[in-house]
């Protein structure tokens, strides 16, 4: 232990008469308590720190309208409809769902699998691209890659049903960002589609 020697303890006889020997003092300070405290604070700050500041996912919705001219039109060949159901399940079909071919077109996948579906469909649309000069010039003016014009007919329609979770919706919106889908919309599910989701869920035993 560090202690101060006051000098008048034992051994008084060593002092010579009239001569005092200067004692060499140790200049070292015991830093252990300070270090202890410092590390305590470090652990405290590590635990309380919120390193990840929240980010924002921008979402734009169209105005509800009954006016036919104002509605967004999509090409059937370029549209992909994604349905979200319970239990993190995803269902999808390309183009339009018709009575006769419905069971064939209607497919099921998961949140992991939907990425490949989106990419595949996007490639397909891009392969059918007919050069659109107007679009390319616009992109060039905005300093954006003109290759984006290739996907101008691609449209993803997202339809969550009542049992989908908020996380599923954000995940699928995020998937649009990840795969750079420029045109997508969040739409109310149709009853026929909802029924198909329910039937598939029952068949697959998803609770």
């Amino acid at each position: 232990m560090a202690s101060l020697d006051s000098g008048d303890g034992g051994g008084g006889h060593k002092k010579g008469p009239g001569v005092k020997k200067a004692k060499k003092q140790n200049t070292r300070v015991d830093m252990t308590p300070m270090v202890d405290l410092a590390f305590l604070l470090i652990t405290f700050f590590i635990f309380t720190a919120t390193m990840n500041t929240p980010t924002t996912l921008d979402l734009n919705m169209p105005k509800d309208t009954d006016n036919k001219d104002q509605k967004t039109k999509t090409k059937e060949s370029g549209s992909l409809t994604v349905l979200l159901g319970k239990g993190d399940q995803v269902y999808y079909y390309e183009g339009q769902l018709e009575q006769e071919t419905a069971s064939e077109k209607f497919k099921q996948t998961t949140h992991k699998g939907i990425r490949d579906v989106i990419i595949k469909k996007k490639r397909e649309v891009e392969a059918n691209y007919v050069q659109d000069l107007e679009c390319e010039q616009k992109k060039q003016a905005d300093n954006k890659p003109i290759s984006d014009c290739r996907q101008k007919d691609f449209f993803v329609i997202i339809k969550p049903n009542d049992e989908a979770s908020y996380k599923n919706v954000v995940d699928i919106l995020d998937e649009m960002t990840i795969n750079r889908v420029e045109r997508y919309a969040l739409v109310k599910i149709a009853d026929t589609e909802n029924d198909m989701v329910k039937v598939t869920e029952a068949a697959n035993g998803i609770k």
Partner: protein
Amino acid sequence: MPRVSLPKKSTDTDMTPFVDIGFLILSFFIMATKFKTPEPVPITTPNSVNADKLPDDNAVLISIDKDNKVYFSVIPKSDATKADAVANDVSTVRELNLDDKDKQNFRNSPMVGMPFNKLKSFLAIPPDKQKEIAQDGIPVLDSATNELVYWVGAAQRVFAGEKLVFMIKGDNDSHYPTFKAVIDALKRNEIFKYNLVTMPEEAPGTSEIAVYRKEIEKLQGKK
């Protein structure tokens, strides 16, 4: 025989560099830390690859917790009394008879999620005690009694002429219909742009967005 005398080595190690680094890390954490604001209801937000920071303008925060309860809060950028004005507006429109103290409590309470008929009694409680009470959530699901419409409308009137962003902070486990009802309430006030609060996540390296971001960097770097 000569004896090999081993020099007595001191067992003390020089801790100075260690302490230096220790304090460096400590000062880093002190400066980098933003304290978690205490939330009355914990909400775990989903992740997204978006890297845009939340705007720090005037904001309306609509929160949805895991039990599908909806909460409303106003985050004014500079003028805190704007929150009182929102309470005032709601009070006049819905004839709730909120007094000045209630309005002030509204300003200081972190989140309000009570139907209008219980709002006055809830706001009579001091803000620090409010979090002990389980709130019912603002009714939204029935479009005829969607009370969020009035809250949003009030905020819009108070912040008229200023930039106001609408943030929606939903819990992972909340259900889609609640989110849809919130969107509907905003749509009915002619608001079509929303910011969904998410936590950042790394984009997969091979995905298009990662490639695209590099491409954009190149294009804009040239200019």
